[in-house]
């Protein structure tokens, strides 16, 4: 192929012996912008609503409502994790459209890390809701024969979360680069609009699936 592989990212600089790639730098930049922006916007909340405060409240209560509809429980314990996941993914997927940047979720490492975070969070919230023995026993529900299937499904669920995010974002980028190389400068613009839509939908899907998994692990119905 005339283009570099979409599965590898070259190291831009080295911290000691640790290679730092472009996606890592962009991830840190997004994290800094989100954290600083949130801190600046929430410094002085008041009952005299300013526009930015209304926007933020809309965002946060909207996400809390969605989580509540899916898990049917109090959304506050899981809200920080899931809302941050959603906002970070939204920013990361869309950042690929800025000329010169490539989306960090378009390389395999970032979706893998996020999927592992969700994996850990599912077990953490499950143990917190049901206790260690209760949570472990839930793998054998409804029948003991389901035990290997439930264990396998943990692995495949996490894997599919990673592959879905990576595949969608990377293929969009790849396609835009290919069309750019073959057809010209302004031709990929409809593809970039599609990439915007797909990036947002994938961010939403990732967060919703994480919510569903956490809700299923923490529910005390089964």
């Amino acid at each position, binding site marked *: *192929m005339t283009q570099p*592989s*979409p*599965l*590898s990212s070259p190291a831009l600089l080295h911290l000691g012996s640790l290679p730092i790639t472009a996606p890592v730098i962009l991830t840190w930049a997004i994290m800094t912008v989100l954290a600083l922006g949130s801190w600046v916007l929430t410094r002085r909340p008041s009952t005299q609503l300013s526009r930015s405060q209304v926007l933020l409240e809309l965002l946060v209560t909207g996400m809390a409502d*969605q989580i509540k*509809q899916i898990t049917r429980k109090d959304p506050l314990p899981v809200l920080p994790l899931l809302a941050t996941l959603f906002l970070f993914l939204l920013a990361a997927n869309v950042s690929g459209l800025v000329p010169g940047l490539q989306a960090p979720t378009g390389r395999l490492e970032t979706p893998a890390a996020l999927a592992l975070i969700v994996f850990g969070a599912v077990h953490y919230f499950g143990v917190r809701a049901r206790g260690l023995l209760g949570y472990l026993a839930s793998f054998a529900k409804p029948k003991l024969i389901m035990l290997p299937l439930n264990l396998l499904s943990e692995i495949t669920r996490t894997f*599919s979360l990673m*592959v*879905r995010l*990576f*595949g*969608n974002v990377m*293929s969009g980028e790849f396609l835009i680069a290919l069309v750019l190389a073959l057809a010209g400068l302004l031709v990929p613009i409809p593809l970039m609009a599609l990439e915007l839509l797909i990036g947002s*939908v*994938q961010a*939403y*899907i990732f967060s*919703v*699936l994480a919510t*569903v998994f956490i809700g299923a692990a923490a529910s005390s119905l089964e």
Partner: protein
Amino acid sequence: MDAKTISIIAAALAVSIGSIAPALGEGRSVAAAMDAIARQPEAAGTIARTLFVGLAMIETMAIYCLVIALMLLFANPYV
């Protein structure tokens, strides 16, 4: 026909055959969602949300084929 040629052909076949069934499945699911929304417009939010999640699950099958094709082209252990 060395391993490289076969890998290229296999990658093309993987993506082309592997995206037929997900596309058909997604078409059917969107049609069912349209029916449901037409029947109950006030549940359009829930239906749309469930539709998107279902579409993502179906799409994952096509993405798996894409990942195999990518591995054949870029991370091929046999070439």
